[in-house]
C-alpha cells in the first residue's frame, strides 16, 4: 500500500492546488532559462544568418553589434581589392524609435547592400525579398506590421514586401531590412530647417576663418547643399562585410587589413564573442542570478509545504510507528510526496510554459538540455526540501499516538 498516494488522494484538491502553485513557480524558473537562451539566440542569430567571414569595423571598436562603429562607405571598394576577398558589402545597422498609432515604435534598421544583397538570405514567412533600390522593406512580424503595409520614416514611405519571424536584435527589437541608402536616409534624416541652419553655420564658420577671408569663393562653395560638395563625404556606414574566396588564406587577409591604420578587422566568431561578453552578458548574468534566486525560493516554499504537510500527519506517523512501521516507511511517505510535488509541479510548469511562453514579447527558448537540468534541480530540491519534514517525522515518538 502506498501511503503517500493514499494521503494525497485523501487531500487531493489541496495537493493539486499546491502542485499548481509550485508548478507556476517552476515555470518562471524554466522561463528564466528560456529568456536567457532567447537573448543569446537573438543576439547571435543575425551574425550567423548574415554569414560574413570577416567584418571591417571602425579602428579599435568591437562594432557594429557591440558598440557604435563608423567607417567610410568607400572602404567597401578598398576591401574588395585585397587578395583573397571574394566579395565585400556595406553594412548599416542602428536602432530607431518613432511613434506609430500614438505608441512608441522601436526597430533595428539593417541596410542591405543593394543590388548585390536583396535579402535572399533572410528567412521570409511571407512576401518576397527586396526588388528595388528604394522604398521597400522586409520586417519582422514582432514589429506588428502587415504585408503590403506602408510606413513613413522621415520624408519617405516604405512598403513592407516581406515578413520574417524571430529576426530580433540583441536589444529585443524586431529587425527591418532596407537597402543601405534607405537605411542611411532613415538614420540621417534631417529637417529642411536643420539643413538650412547647418548650411548657415558652415558659411559663418568659413567667413570667420582666415582662408574664407582670403578666398571668398570657398565660403560661397561651402554654402551649397552638402550633396554638391566633393569634400563632404556621403554618410558613413557601420561596417564592411567580407566573404573570403574558397581556398584563400583567411589569416593573410586579416594581416593585410590589420595593417590599415583606420580600421580593425573582426572574425565572425569574435563578433559573437564580443556580443555575448558585452551587451548581452549583463542581461545573461541578471537572468542567471534571478534563476538561482527563484530556484532557492522554490526550494524554501517546497520545504515549508512539505514540513506543514508532515506536521499535519504527526499523529498518523506516531500511529504508524506504534504499530511497528519501520523508519524507511515513514521516510518514504514524506519523500514520495516531495517527489510527486516536485515532478507534478515540473509537468505543470512544462505544460503551462508551452502555452504561455509564445505569448511573451521576447523569445523564450526552452531547450532539451535546460529541461533535463531543471529536472535535476527539481529532484535535488525535492529531496533537500523533504529533509525538514523527514527530520520532524523521524523525531516523532510512538507514544505521541497515545496522547
Amino acid at each position: 500500500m502506498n501511503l503517500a498516494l493514499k494521503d494525497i488522494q485523501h487531500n487531493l484538491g489541496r495537493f493539486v492546488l499546491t502542485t499548481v502553485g509550485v508548478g507556476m513557480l517552476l515555470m518562471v524558473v524554466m522561463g528564466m532559462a528560456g529568456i536567457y537562451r532567447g537573448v543569446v539566440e537573438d543576439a547571435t542569430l543575425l551574425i550567423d544568418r548574415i554569414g560574413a567571414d570577416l567584418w571591417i569595423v571602425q579602428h579599435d571598436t568591437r562594432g557594429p553589434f557591440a558598440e557604435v562603429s563608423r567607417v567610410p562607405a568607400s572602404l567597401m571598394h578598398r576591401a574588395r581589392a585585397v587578395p583573397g576577398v571574394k566579395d565585400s558589402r556595406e553594412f548599416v545597422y542602428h536602432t530607431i524609435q518613432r511613434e506609430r498609432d500614438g505608441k512608441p515604435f522601436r526597430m533595428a534598421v539593417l541596410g542591405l547592400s543593394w543590388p548585390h544583397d536583396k535579402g535572399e538570405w533572410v528567412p521570409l514567412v511571407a512576401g518576397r525579398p527586396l526588388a528595388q533600390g528604394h522604398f521597400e522593406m522586409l520586417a519582422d512580424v514582432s514589429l506588428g506590421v502587415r504585408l503590403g503595409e506602408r510606413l513613413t520614416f522621415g520624408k519617405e514611405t516604405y512598403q513592407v514586401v516581406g515578413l520574417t519571424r524571430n529576426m530580433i536584435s540583441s536589444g529585443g527589437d524586431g529587425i527591418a531590412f532596407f537597402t543601405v541608402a534607405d537605411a542611411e536616409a532613415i538614420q540621417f534624416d534631417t529637417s529642411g530647417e536643420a539643413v538650412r541652419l547647418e548650411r548657415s553655420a558652415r558659411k559663418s564658420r568659413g567667413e570667420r576663418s582666415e582662408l574664407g577671408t582670403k578666398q571668398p569663393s570657398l565660403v560661397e562653395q561651402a554654402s551649397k547643399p552638402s550633396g554638391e560638395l566633393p569634400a563632404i563625404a556621403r554618410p558613413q556606414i557601420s561596417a564592411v562585410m567580407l566573404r573570403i574566396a574558397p581556398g584563400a588564406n583567411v589569416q593573410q587577409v586579416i594581416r593585410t587589413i590589420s595593417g590599415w591604420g583606420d580600421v580593425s578587422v573582426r572574425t565572425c566568431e569574435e563578433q559573437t564573442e564580443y556580443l555575448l561578453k558585452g551587451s548581452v552578458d549583463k542581461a545573461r548574468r541578471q537572468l542567471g542570478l534571478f534563476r538561482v534566486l527563484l530556484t532557492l525560493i522554490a526550494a524554501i516554499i517546497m520545504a515549508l509545504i512539505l514540513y506543514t504537510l508532515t506536521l499535519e500527519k504527526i499523529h498518523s506517523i506516531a500511529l504508524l510507528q506504534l504499530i511497528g512501521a519501520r523508519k524507511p516507511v515513514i521516510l518514504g511517505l514524506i519523500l514520495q510526496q516531495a517527489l510527486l510535488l516536485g515532478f507534478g509541479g515540473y509537468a505543470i510548469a512544462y505544460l503551462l510554459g508551452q502555452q504561455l511562453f509564445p505569448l511573451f514579447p521576447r523569445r523564450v527558448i526552452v531547450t532539451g538540455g535546460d529541461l533535463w537540468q531543471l529536472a535535476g534541480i527539481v529532484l535535488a530540491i525535492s529531496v533537500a526540501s523533504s529533509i525538514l519534514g523527514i527530520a520532524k517525522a523521524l523525531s516523532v515518538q510512538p507514544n505521541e499516538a497515545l496522547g
Partner: protein
Amino acid sequence: MDNTPAIEAIELTKVYGSGNTEVVAMRRASMSVRRGEVVALLGPSGSGKSTFLTAVGLINPPTSGQIHIGGQFVLDGPHARMNLTSFRRKHVGFVFQKSNLIPFLNARENVQIALELNDTSPRAAKKRALELLDNLGVKDRSEHLPTELSGGQQQRVAVARALANQPSILLADEPTAALDSVTGRQVMELFARVAREHGTGVIVVTHDHRALSVFDTIYEMEDGLLIRQSASTTRVSEAIPHSSETAPCPG
C-alpha cells in the same frame, strides 16, 4: 491453549529525571496476564497507568525490571534484548481512546497496513483484513474513511487492526472514554471475546466502573504502585447477552 503467560512484567520501576527533580512514576510493578485473560487497570490520573502501559507496550522502557512477552525475554530494565519495533509489530496490539485510525486510510486499509508492515503480501493482507472486519461486524463499512464511522465502529476497526498480526498481548488505553455507555459496553464485550477466541492477553486501562464485570482480573494503580484488587467472578460474555452490534465470532 499454551500456558505461557501472554505477558509477564516483573518489578517494573520507572524514574524520570534525577537528583532533586527525580520522579518515580512506577514502583516495582508486577503483572502476569494469561493468554485469553482480560485485565482492567484502574487508577486516578497521574497514578502511573500510562507509564505502565507504555512500558509493557515497549514504547517507553522501564528504568529497571523485566518484561517477557509470549515467553520471550524482551526487556531487561532499559535494555532491549531484541529489536523492539519489530517485536512490537508482531506481538503487541494497541487500542486507545480516540484518533485510533489513520485518517487517510479507509477501515480495511487501516487493518491491512498493520499486516503489510509485517511483510504480509498486499493480496493476503486485504483478505485477512476483510476477515477480521467481518469477525468484528464492520465489514460493510470496510471502504469507509474513519470520519464516516461511528465511535463504536472506529473502535472495532482499531481492535481488528490490533489483532491483525495475532499479537500475544493487546493493550487498550481508555478505549471507551469517547463512547456512550451502550457502545462502551459493547467494546468491552469485544475485548473479552477476542481474548477468548484469539488467546490474546488483554490489558485495559479504564475509568469505566460500569464495565468491570467484563474483566477476569482488576488491578489498581496509585502513586506508581500496582495493586491486584480482585478477580471478577463473572465474565461479561457469560453475564450479558450479545448486543445487536456484537457480531458472532466464527469458529
